[in-house]
């Protein structure tokens, strides 16, 4: 009897404890929401960036420089994952009104997918707008024509990273056509070196054969972007666009991939091409800023060329006019909004650009005329700059059309692991594109 009674009392006590802890939890959750923390007059905002070493280093450098100039504003750096996981996080946080005051995200078609007109604060009235690189400005607009993104970092190309010592040793020339590229691969393979590095362990890295080929597509079909947006041109039925998919299949079938291509990660790939265990790595030039971290002292061993196409005369580089722009969600108001705008404006100045460059070495030209590249830049930046200067550069499809299918990376991997062939892969991607177009409510897709 006594036991039972004590047992019950024990239960009652536990329930009380549980209830009071709930109450306490409720309190603390509430106080998190209020903004009355910190000393009077000071404003604290959060800056959400990618989580790579370079992203964090750049963010820290800009924040430090900004805080030195604006002592009453405190900026906290927060990070998020990349790829589709990052897309999901950004969309959800925007939808729930829980986004950081300033965040870095892609422009171009991915910007359209987060509905800038609904979710972001327009930045048209900002002083830095007039100095923007026109390509960057065009791809940072909403469907209402207003600019939503501030410049952050540099533009960069999408092409093939190659190991310069390997090229010298085997006496190879930079390929301008796909046939020359495959011939180089053959020579490289005979020398016992991996011809083409792939890193499917990090799925987004698989897309370059398709995305980076867009300059070559446009050289053959100049109105591809418009027709594609209108639902009239498809990857599977446009031979020039299908080529990128076929390239994945060819390289895989020829046995040119690295042995661990299915599980390797981005940093494995960078290391391989920087140290010469692989000759080529189709990738975004921007990843070059991580070479020093994974292979110290090898920055100048890696060069960059455009994905080769069918015709040497029209070959050029597909470029990303800054995938990263800085945005302010619409929910930000008052002092925090002022601070956020000030911070973006600072990042657009020469001082801001220099800070970003100090955090991660630039791999292409800056996005604002206010900034210049330092005199000492990496080989990748020089190679990219050369394509820009000779006019042989055009923006990737995602900057010319609001539609990018969310499953491109997985479908590229399907082709690269021989689960489907190139034609089937392209067809699957066309279906993926259709879903995205319908979700965006574009005309011509019902």
């Amino acid at each position: 009897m006594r036991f039972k009674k004590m047992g019950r009392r024990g239960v009652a006590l536990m329930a009380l404890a549980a209830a009071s802890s709930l109450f306490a939890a409720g309190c603390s959750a509430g106080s998190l929401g209020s903004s009355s923390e910190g000393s009077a007059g000071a404003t604290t905002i959060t800056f959400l960036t990618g989580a790579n070493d370079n992203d964090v280093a750049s963010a820290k450098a800009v924040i430090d420089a900004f805080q030195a100039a604006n002592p009453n504003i405190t900026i906290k750096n927060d990070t998020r994952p990349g790829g589709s996981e990052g897309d999901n996080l950004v969309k959800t946080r925007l939808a729930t009104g829980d986004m950081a005051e300033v965040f870095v995200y892609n422009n171009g078609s991915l910007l359209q997918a987060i509905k800038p007109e609904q979710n972001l604060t327009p930045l048209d009235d900002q002083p830095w707008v007039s100095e923007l690189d026109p390509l960057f400005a065009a791809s940072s607009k909403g469907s209402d024509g207003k600019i939503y993104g501030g410049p952050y970092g540099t533009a960069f190309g999408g092409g093939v990273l190659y190991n310069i010592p390997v090229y010298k040793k085997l006496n190879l020339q930079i390929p301008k056509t796909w046939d020359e590229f495959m011939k180089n691969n053959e020579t490289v393979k005979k020398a016992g070196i991996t011809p083409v590095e792939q890193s499917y362990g990090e799925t987004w890295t698989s897309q370059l054969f398709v995305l980076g080929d867009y300059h070559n597509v446009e050289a053959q079909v100049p109105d591809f972007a418009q027709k594609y947006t209108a639902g009239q041109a498809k990857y599977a039925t446009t031979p020039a666009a299908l080529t990128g998919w076929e390239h994945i299949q060819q390289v895989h079938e020829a046995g040119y991939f690295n042995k661990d291509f299915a599980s390797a990660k981005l940093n494995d790939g960078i290391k391989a091409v920087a140290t010469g265990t692989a000759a080529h790595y189709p990738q975004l030039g921007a990843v070059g800023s991580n070479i020093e971290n994974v292979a110290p002292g090898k920055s100048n061993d890696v060069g960059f060329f455009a994905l080769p196409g069918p015709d040497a005369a029209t070959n050029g580089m597909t470029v990303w006019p800054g995938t990263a722009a800085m945005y302010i969600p619409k929910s930000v108001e008052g002092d925090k909004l002022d601070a956020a705008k000030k911070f973006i404006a600072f990042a657009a100045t020469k001082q801001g650009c220099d800070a970003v460059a100090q955090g991660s070495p630039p791999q292409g030209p800056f996005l604002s005329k206010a900034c210049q590249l330092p005199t000492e830049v990496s080989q990748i930046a020089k190679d990219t700059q050369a394509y820009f200067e000779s006019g042989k550069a055009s923006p990737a499809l995602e900057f010319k059309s609001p539609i990018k299918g969310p499953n491109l990376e997985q479908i590229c991997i399907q082709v690269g692991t021989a689960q489907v062939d190139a034609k089937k892969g392209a067809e699957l991607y066309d279906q993926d594109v259709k879903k995205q177009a319908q979700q965006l409510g574009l005309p011509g897709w019902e």
Partner: protein
Amino acid sequence: MASTLSTSDATRLAPAPRSLGDRGKKRPGPYPYWFYLVPTLIYVVFFMVPTFASFYFSFTRWDLFTSTWIGLDNYRTFFAEQALIIGLRNTLIYAVITSGLKVVLGMALALLLTSQIIARGYLRSVVFFPVLVSTIGVGLTFTVLMDPEKGLINNALAVVGIDGPGWLTNPNLALFSIALVDVWKGVGLATVIYIAGLVSIPQEYYEAAEVDGAGRWQVFRNIMLPLARPATATVITLSLIGGLRSFDLIWAMTKGGPGFASDVIASVIYKQYQAGFYGLSTAGSVVLFLVVTVIVVPLTWWLNRGEEVT
């Protein structure tokens, strides 16, 4: 002792309906009906409303702010999708493999752990430990162990001269590798259920069988297996539902890859959601709900009916 009890304690402790004797009259329960109010409210707000709202949203194109009614289009898109066909097939394969292996291995381990062996208590807890570990942690650990080039498993195989496969990177193998990890993690629970089932079989049956001269196999086949049937039913139902809904382990290990090779319905739905296709992914959830219902309801009915017959 009784004096320390208050009167209210006494009445509550007493088996009220019988001692007071209900003579055909309907007595109100010890708690008033308005006690139901709060649970009902919670249930309606947090379960009923979202469920019915999701049925509605599965017929719309939805971006969390606005929704357009598009009828059955989402279902049409969902069923036309290659990932779904792969996902549906994989879900069934995964559920059958994991629940089958859990039944067999769980039974085997339970037999071992109810017999007289050294360190029985210790071994029982070792078998149960993986159940307590976080699924994501298990997934990440095994991803590292199963790495084709640097993983411990293939390195160990290399020592004895076997060239280990790409456990998670070979499209034909990935799903099975994950299923094995799922079994490793979940077999402890099946074992515990079986141990309970086997221990509750009365000793008299074994004695009678011994008198009749039954062998070990006959005892197992004719006594343990049929009398542990309720345990088998529980294990199958639990692991099948778990297998059909499986998501966290697959997401932690391959994210449905390579390509779509290890996608299951739940991961396809999650990817749609990630892509911002909220209406489409809601339609997928409705499909998953129906699939689970269609498989599990008749199965439980059949298993329980069988139990009553024996």
